[in-house]
């Protein structure tokens, strides 16, 4: 995964130098990759300047002299190495033999070795080990036929296999950025000021300068100038750009840390706001989805990582509140349902970014089988919503921390709302009971605010002890199982502590063998039918010397009396407790991560949006 930004400006359209705008936008993309950085600018004398280096943006921006360069056309890149180790030569942009064409790329070119071989035979000289460099030489090669840069790029695209988002500049055609998208995300930003145009891997990159965006589809290719967008689909021809412009209601502050030490902590604290915005944004699409659910015989739910945990909560509620057959599955495991999924079954695909490749593939395959597809996403017009029959959006704002927090709670809130509504439509809930339940959902943002305030100091305190551990179990029953799974995932992904979640009843069928003196076991207890049954599971663990941390309704004295550490939570109805009860686990993972000296925003080996299978 990498971050791309490109900007074209006309004279006087921006006050800052182009280089420093590129640097600022690139900084917003840093979460997508941070091992090397580079930029290419065509200056006002139409000279091409390329500077690049290994290292993080803050460390090397002065060395590269970002702020010293001005011009009208520029591209920049922050890299997360896939082909070729992080180094100065492997950093993007890559240029052709004539040193006129500069390319930045996110994705993987699968057939780059054979393309490289052909180009080498034709006498091209390669300087890096990357797959990206072939693109620059390929365009150079086609230009030799006497065609323009855009036609040459189109020709090159026909020969590329794999996933890519590209931005290309050419000294021969200054004032344009050529682009192409296949699988890897790419977004155009139309500047607030006239005479500024952006292209980037995602919206937060340029949010400070504009909120008017066009999210590109796979197979789309085109170029931008300082005032115009030319866009076409490689197979279906020219696209009407005006119809594609969307206005996002994200603010630039949302994409900044704004006084918090990490994005993740900020996003945890933003949850009350994200939840109330999501509630306020519920409209006809959510109603439509509720109707679709009520009329479906079978509902599948799919997602990856945290989104899958939201699916598991929805699966439980669909069975429990609506009485509908529902199955959640991990998106990459789609294969197991390829025969059973049938025409008019409903598939609800949950993805924060709307670009998760595994989820997208499951969507495509189910769609081919005639299933109806509904998307739940946080990014308007992203790939999965566009390929779905209906899309409902969470309004969490941009989430930059790699570990999902506010997008999880908003997904759960939105799904819970839709499922309650579906139960009403199906006649499972009376209108009076429905409005009672929806009223309780409206209180969730405030309840979450109180929960953050009450649990944060305890989570910070206990993290110094958890930081010394190497393993942990997260146990619960019923709806508390997916909460436990999400809690365990958080601890794994940012604190690097091995953590497993199990249904508490399953723990004595194996996992308990590992429990010894001081082994941490987290119990999540909701106000449901299991709240007393689970006491026996706590006792089992306690008998083996486990260190027990319990998250339970505040009056559950029995559970707290046999626990070493208690998070006393607000008592609600069990189906509404899912959202506040994940808060202590988010905070525990965050504080454990920083106690262990890690950066929770940039966990090793992980990327925010996984766009490769």
């Amino acid at each position, binding site marked *: 995964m990498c971050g791309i930004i490109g900007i074209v400006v006309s004279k006087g359209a921006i006050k800052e130098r182009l280089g420093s705008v590129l640097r600022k936008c690139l900084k917003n993309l840093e979460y997508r990759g941070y091992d090397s950085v580079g930029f290419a600018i065509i200056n006002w004398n139409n000279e091409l300047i390329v500077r690049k280096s290994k290292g993080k943006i803050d460390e090397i921006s002065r060395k590269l002299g970002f702020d010293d360069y001005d011009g009208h056309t520029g591209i920049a890149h922050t890299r997360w190495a896939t082909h070729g180790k992080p180094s100065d030569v492997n950093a993007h942009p890559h240029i052709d033999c004539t040193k006129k064409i500069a390319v930045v790329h996110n994705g993987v070119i699968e057939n780059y070795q054979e393309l490289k071989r052909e180009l080498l035979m034709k006498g091209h000289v390669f300087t890096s080990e990357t797959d990206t460099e072939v693109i620059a030489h390929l365009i150079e090669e086609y230009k030799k036929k006497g065609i323009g840069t855009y036609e040459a790029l189109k020709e090159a695209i026909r020969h590329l296999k794999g996933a890519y988002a590209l931005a290309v500049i050419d000294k021969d055609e200054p004032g344009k950025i050529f682009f192409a998208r296949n699988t890897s995300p790419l977004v155009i930003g139309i500047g607030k000021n006239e005479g500024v145009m952006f292209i980037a891997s995602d919206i937060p990159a340029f949010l400070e300068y504009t909120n008017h965006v066009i999210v590109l589809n796979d197979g789309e290719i085109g170029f931008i100038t300082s005032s115009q967008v030319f866009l076409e689909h490689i197979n279906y021809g020219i696209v009407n750009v005006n119809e594609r412009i969307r206005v996002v209601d994200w603010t630039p502050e949302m994409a*900044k840390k*704004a006084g918090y030490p*990490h994005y993740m*902590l900020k996003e945890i*604290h933003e949850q009350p706001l994200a939840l*109330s915005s999501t509630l306020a944004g519920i409209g006809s699409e959510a109603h439509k989805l509720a109707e679709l659910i009520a009329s479906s015989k079978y509902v599948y739910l799919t997602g990856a990582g945290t989104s899958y945990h939201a699916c598991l909560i929805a699966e439980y509620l669909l069975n429990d509140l609506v009485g509908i057959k529902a199955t959640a599955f991990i998106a990459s495991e789609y294969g197991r349902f390829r025969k059973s999924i049938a025409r008019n079954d409903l598939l609800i695909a949950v993805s924060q970014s709307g670009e998760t490749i595994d989820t997208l593939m499951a969507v495509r395959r189910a769609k081919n089988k005639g299933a109806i597809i509904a998307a739940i996403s946080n990014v308007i017009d992203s790939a999965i919503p566009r390929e779905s029959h209906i899309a409902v959006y969470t309004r969490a704002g941009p989430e930059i921390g790699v570990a999902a927090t506010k997008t999880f709670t908003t997904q759960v809130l939105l799904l819970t709302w839709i499922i309650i509504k579906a139960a009403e439509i199906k006649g499972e809930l009376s209108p009076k009971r429905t409005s009672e339940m929806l009223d309780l959902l409206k209180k969730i943002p405030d309840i979450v605010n109180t929960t953050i305030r009450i649990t944060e*100091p305890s989570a910070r*305190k206990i993290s110094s002890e958890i930081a010394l551990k190497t393993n942990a179990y997260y146990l619960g029953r019923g709806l508390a199982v997916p909460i436990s799974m999400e809690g365990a995932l958080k601890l794994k992904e940012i604190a690097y502590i091995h953590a497993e979640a199990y249904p508490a009843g399953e723990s004595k069928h194996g996992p308990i063998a590992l429990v010894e003196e001081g082994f941490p076991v987290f119990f999540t207890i909701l106000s449901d039918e299991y709240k007393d049954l689970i006491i026996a599971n706590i006792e089992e663990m306690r008998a083996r010397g486990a260190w027990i941390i319990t998250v339970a309704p505040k009056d559950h004295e029995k559970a707290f009396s046999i626990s070493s550490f208690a998070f006393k939570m607000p008592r609600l109805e069990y189906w509404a407790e899912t959202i506040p009860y994940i808060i202590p686990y988010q905070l525990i993972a965050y*504080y454990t991560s920083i106690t262990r000296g890690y950066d929770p925003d940039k966990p090793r080996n992980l990327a925010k949006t996984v766009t490769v299978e």
Partner: protein
Amino acid sequence: MKLPVMILAGGAGERIRDIADNKPKVMLKIAGKPIVEYVIENIINIGLNDIYIVTDKPNYFEDLSIKYGKIARIDIIKQELPEIRGAVLSAKDVISQEYFMLVYGDILAPKQFYSDVIDAFNVYSKPVMALIPEEDVTSYGAAIVDSKGVVGKVVEKPKEVLPEAYAIGGLYILNKDFFDVLEKSEDMGEALSEYSSKRSIIASIWSGWWIDVGYPWDLLKAIYFVLKGLDRTIISPKADIASSAIIKGPVIVEDDAVIDEYSVIKGPVYIGKGAYVGNYALIREYVDLERNVVVAANAEVVWSCIQDKATIGRNSYLGFSVVGEKAVIEPNVITLTLLKSIKEKPIIVKRRGQEYAKLGAFIGASSRVRAGTILEAGTLVKKKTIYDKS
């Protein structure tokens, strides 16, 4: 950015009086520097250089304006009125800019603590206040935050634990008009509550390390975080290191320090100017020996903070302890460090896969612990007294 900074360096420091004696507690040293210098250096490092130190004992601070004179302008302001409210009002007239930064001088935190508050100020253009997620807010002051991240009620001296409150971090950016509100208020808490209801103070939640030096054991936390940051060994060419001494891990040894034959130093450790480590002495991790400290032959010291001119006698064992200036620990004194119950604020350490709660002794300035004494975990030896085993 032109943002004047007011550092509050007064306060009686009653809870740490036995260690600090007459000195302002912000002049207690950590790894060779008074606490207040860490604050000053962080402020200078984020690009601010117009500094006012408010203190009831100006003579202790005069050297600072010379020491930092080339990179910052430091003025010393005499504190005329009591409490935080009084300190802030004492400096009211020197603040000419619209906004100013207010810093408590007894807070130790990394540079990012300060730069985050500046970030919040730059984004929102509103007053900002740093808050810490601490369970027990009674020692620090408490603030409630609403769902938009704006500070609500602030209590300067909470009498009980408030479940929804954060601890006051001791770092603010405020507008000049705060002075008018403060003048009409009883205390800082009342003024901040009132001011936020009009101007909306943005809460900047800080999650990193943060130490409010109030109790002696806070110095143990402080040396941990400061020495943990050491990434290399620096030995002054003017130090006298015996060839048979073993020095391992990051260690700083200052001018004129003497490390005698067969001693073992296991970093991270700080050994101040003119300090002496005797034959066969064992200095283990997180030890801070300030200027002219003597550790006599065969003594063992672990995770302790020893202020200027104190002496640790031959054959003594000192762990998880703080020793005030000029204190003398006679030979064969043993500190017991394993706590039976966790009621104090122990240091949790992991050794060979096991966790232990440790706390040693707190030995007042200019006191004397008689030879052969066994000090129970958590013992306080009052300043200028003689502690006998009987």
